[in-house]
């Protein structure tokens, strides 16, 4: 499990050109499969695939406003994905991002709506900090149970999603409910002082982009260049070696999950403070699961994961436009990203299987 999607047993490679081609084939299988599925789905709706995809890409990348819109949409996802990456580095395969995003969103919405008398930067910082602290504490709690009491982290985080979602929606429908809101289970709108300053009108791109940029650089530096990152990686790859090296493995695992949860909390806060302006019961449906998938696609490496967030954000924006022009549901983006992930996971095994079969038939095995 430590190498996630890099699972393959290398078969003896053919010689010459064949050997050189194998890595290329392995790398191309996943995007080719994704493109193939997109073409099939658009074609099945009776539309020309290539022009339709180009219209979608024009909408997501065709102008400064389009790029800003796509980036703005991807910011919470980027932070949540980095959070999942941090947890996976220590071998803590949590899938609780969804619930933690909701916790962060609700806490920031309540802080943004009810806490008053602060200057904007302080109000925003307080909202973000409380969201990160609360979601981080929840995640750290799950991590503590896993590290000290052997509570299965996959199952406990899975179940925690439903408990946290239920709790957040209960609070948003009850004590924090805004009866005037149209959306179900919505809180009061946040005060203007809690809203992030818009950078480009009508795009939802706010100064939050700088916060996310700092978080991305910080996450990369911590995971790839710092001693903490090195220890996390060592624990993820070989907890026994880490223990015998004198490291307090449970403590470092709990810390990684606390950071992971804090990132998810910040992602939830960004949804409220930089985009929606309030908490609603469907504010982040599915976002945590997409973050888990993108972290897996990025092989728990921050830069690769951020790259995949970018690709997914473009696809998501494109699929919204495609839904308008070609009547193909916007779930297209999720279907394509699922195909890419499963193809990426299967490609090394498939290529090795083909190569070993080929060698056996030629009597080379």
């Amino acid at each position, binding site marked *: *499990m430590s190498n*996630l*999607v890099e*699972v*393959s*047993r290398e078969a003896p490679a053919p010689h010459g050109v064949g050997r050189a081609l194998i890595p290329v084939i392995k790398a191309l299988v996943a995007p080719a499969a994704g493109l193939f599925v997109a073409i099939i*789905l658009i074609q*099945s*709706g009776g539309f020309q695939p290539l022009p339709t995809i180009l219209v979608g890409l024009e909408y997501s990348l065709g102008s400064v406003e389009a790029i800003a819109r796509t980036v703005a949409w991807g910011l919470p996802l980027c932070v949540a994905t980095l959070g999942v990456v941090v947890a996976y580095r220590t071998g803590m*395969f949590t*899938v609780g991002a969804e619930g933690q995003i909701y916790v962060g969103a609700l806490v920031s919405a309540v802080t943004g709506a009810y806490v008053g008398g602060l200057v904007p930067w302080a109000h925003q910082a307080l909202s973000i900090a409380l969201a990160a602290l609360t979601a981080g504490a929840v995640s750290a709690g799950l991590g503590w*149970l896993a590290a000290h*009491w*052997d*509570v*299965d*982290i*996959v*199952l*406990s985080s*899975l*179940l*925690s999603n*439903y*408990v946290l*979602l*239920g*709790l957040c*929606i*209960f609070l948003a*429908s*009850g004590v924090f409910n805004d009866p005037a809101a149209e959306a179900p289970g919505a809180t009061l709108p946040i005060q203007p002082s809690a809203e992030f300053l818009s950078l480009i009108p009508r795009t939802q791109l706010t100064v939050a982009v700088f916060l996310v940029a700092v978080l991305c650089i910080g996450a990369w530096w911590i995971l790839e260049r710092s001693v903490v990152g090195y220890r996390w990686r060592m624990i993820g790859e070989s907890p026994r070696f880490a223990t015998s090296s004198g490291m307090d493995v449970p403590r470092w695992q709990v810390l990684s999950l606390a950071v992971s949860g804090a990132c998810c909390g910040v992602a939830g806060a960004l949804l409220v403070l930089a985009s929606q302006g309030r908490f609603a019961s469907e504010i982040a449906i*599915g976002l945590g*699961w*997409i973050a*888990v*998938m993108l972290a*897996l696609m990025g092989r728990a490496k921050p830069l690769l994961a951020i790259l995949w967030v970018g690709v997914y954000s473009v696809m998501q924006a494109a699929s919204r436009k495609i839904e308008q022009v070609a009547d193909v*549901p916007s*779930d*297209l983006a*999720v*279907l394509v990203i*699922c195909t890419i*992930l*499963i193809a990426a*996971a*299967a490609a*090394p*095994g*498939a290529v090795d*299987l083909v190569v070993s079969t080929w060698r056996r038939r030629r009597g080379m095995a």
Partner: protein
Amino acid sequence: MEWLEALLTSGVRMTTPILLAALACLPTLWTRDINIGLEGVMIFGAFFGVALGIATGSALTAVLLTLVLAAAAGLCFGLLVTKLKVDVFVGGIVLFVFAGAATAYLLDILFGVKGNLSDPGIPVLSSLEVPLFEDVPLVGGIVSGHSGLSWLAVILAVVLAVADRRTVVGVRFRAAGSHPEALSAAGVSVVKTRVIAQVWCFALAALAGIEISVGQLGLFTVGMVGGVGFVALAVVIFARGSVGFTVLVSVCFGIATAVSFQFDKNVVPHELTQMLPYAAALIALVFISRRSRRPGRTLVGV
């Protein structure tokens, strides 16, 4: 006593999908390929039960066709995990996310609706009345008036228990997980055994989904499975691979879910009662892990 009868009747209804999904998962626990995408298979089962029911006009035909599709999907998933070495954790997550998006997509494309499909043409599995017991207080509600899938779940539990205890099947499944070299040396294909476990898992999980959509509600809604598959995963982990305990724990969770429906919405909001089974599962998971302190019974890296 009416409330108790209603509770027990509802308990049986709630237990059926949990038990079917848990029984689905059990052989994959034995082969150590436990599939966290179980919920995704249930979503597909619920959808195709309804879609094929509308297409064929017969609930039974829809069930049989969905079973065939599920078995084929299980075969593909099994081959992905065994032959192509796809990590079962990665495969399970993709399956769950894919199922949610694909059913929403198909709902839109095939029926032109978003979110839910309610149609008078959706056939519902007829309930089985047991003449001898239907008028007996308390007992009548437990044994009579439920869909055939409730009885099938009981039969499958007995079959699996007998297969596990009295035949070589259980030994082979467990050996495929714990001692694959020994199984291979005995002349049994490890790959085939693991794939069969996945086919079984998909078929029964699809039945669990069908029970919710065609067996109980007669409609399909995106998100209608609502975490039952994850509760079933918890059941299997608690039961530690035992068929008897799987049945027992499934009944406990079924009753817990039924209890959550009995609360007055004006007293306890339904958002709170809905999360009761998950909170109970989480607490039980912590309690059992604390009691056992035995590493290794995990979903990832078993």
